[in-house]
């Protein structure tokens, strides 16, 4: 990953709006009061939605970001499964390949499951081989550019 990503003006506005609403929700726990404030906030954003002068729009955005910065919540609500939330990264299931490393005695405890698993793995392998074969044939026919090395 070495791409340099920049945000467009629209993206910045959208992110500002989303974060503002979220922080406002954190400030005001009471739902009806929050709904009222959120509508007011939306109206403030909508006020400038037809702004065509880019210079002026950038200024407004700048001012909005500054205002958000001043009014942000020190402990905003974080969804439990997102980064920083209370259940983030909890009990990540073990990767599937761990089952390959099980000892046959251990696998024997779950015979149905592993029998089905073996079958699925074989099917997946067959499908993969088929795809590789098709691609090789296409290359031989000249429909695809040749590759350096194909898995044999």
């Amino acid at each position, binding site marked *: 990953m070495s791409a340099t990503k920049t945000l467009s003006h629209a993206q910045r506005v959208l992110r500002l709006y989303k974060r503002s609403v979220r922080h406002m929700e954190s400030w005001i726990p009471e739902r009806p009061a929050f709904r009222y404030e959120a509508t007011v906030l939306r109206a403030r954003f909508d006020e400038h939605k037809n702004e065509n002068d880019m210079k002026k729009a950038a200024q407004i955005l700048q001012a909005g970001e500054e205002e958000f910065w001043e009014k942000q919540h020190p402990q905003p609500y974080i969804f439990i499964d997102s980064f920083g939330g209370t259940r983030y990264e909890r009990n990540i299931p073990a990767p599937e390949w761990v089952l390959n*490393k099980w*000892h046959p005695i251990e696998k024997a405890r779950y015979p149905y499951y592993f029998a089905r698993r073996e079958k699925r793995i074989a099917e997946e392998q067959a499908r993969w081989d088929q795809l590789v074969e098709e691609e090789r044939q296409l290359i031989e026919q000249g429909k695809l550019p040749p590759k350096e090395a194909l898995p044999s």
Partner: protein
Amino acid sequence: MRQIVSTFLFVTVVSGTIIVVSSENWFIIWVGLELSTLALVPILCSGFSPRNVEADNKYFLVQASSAALLLNGALGQAWLTGSWSILDPVNEVTSICLSIALAFKIGLAPVHFWFPDVLQGLPFFQGLIIATWQKIAPLILMFYFSQLGFSYLLITPSLISVLIGGWGGLNQTQVRKILAFSSIGNMGWLVITSAYSFNAAIIMLVIYLIINTSLFLLFDHLKVSTLGHLNTISQLSPISVALVLLVMLSLGGLPPLTGFILKFTSLYFLVANNFIILSSIMIIGNLQDYFFYLRISFNTSLFLFPQHIISSASWRNSTIISPLAPKAWLSSVSTVLSTLAIPLTLPLYIIT
């Protein structure tokens, strides 16, 4: 070897040691030592490989010469005092003769050369007899002997053997040689403590024997002869990883384990007798011991060698030992004793 023959030989070895420990006559002591040596010789070469026989020969020659020296000293003693009793005060010449002979038997430093070679040539179980049982009789004599008055002749070799034990083991890759050098170092500790307290030396002897037994039995069970084999332990028998680790650290003297008492008792008596500078030398020697103990522990438990790995997750297999086999029973009991028995050392004090 037939079972009846080997049983007979074992009984003779045991009875030789008992004769030595329980008699106060120099001649009978000599007889007892010879008995156990001669009975041990066929046991040692029961495997009958060239290495085995060579080690056996070396053992026999060294024991024979030391027995000759012992008899020589005993005769001189009898000639001078007119009595064979070991309680009589010893002459300087006879005492030198006797102590050199005993030092030969237990492999104390300047006369230790035979010990690593012999141990390396033998299987673990025979090595166990040499490294533990065969040391009881000469060590007990040595302890009596150090009570008789002089000690410089014992203190110097003991200090040297603590250092030699450390240096010798540093460069080794053979587990049995490492054990031999650690045994040399520990003999130094035992003998030097016996100069100050008989009881402490007996306690140390008991603890050392237990720890050494469990170590030999563990390695015998795991068939580990070089450091390179240690990494297979984690795959063959996962629980042995913890056992080898704990017993090794116990032998080195890590505090919560039993081996701590070994060093603690010794150092307590040495420091109480103003033996401070020399005991610091001994600690330095023991640190070198500790280095190769840690090397064994690390190789056993913490390293994952690139070679010889059966499969990346086969640690889940475990060798199944029958819990009723006498060897398994003995090794489990001695392992537990050699790691967790610090509170039991108080009864040892009471008994001795």
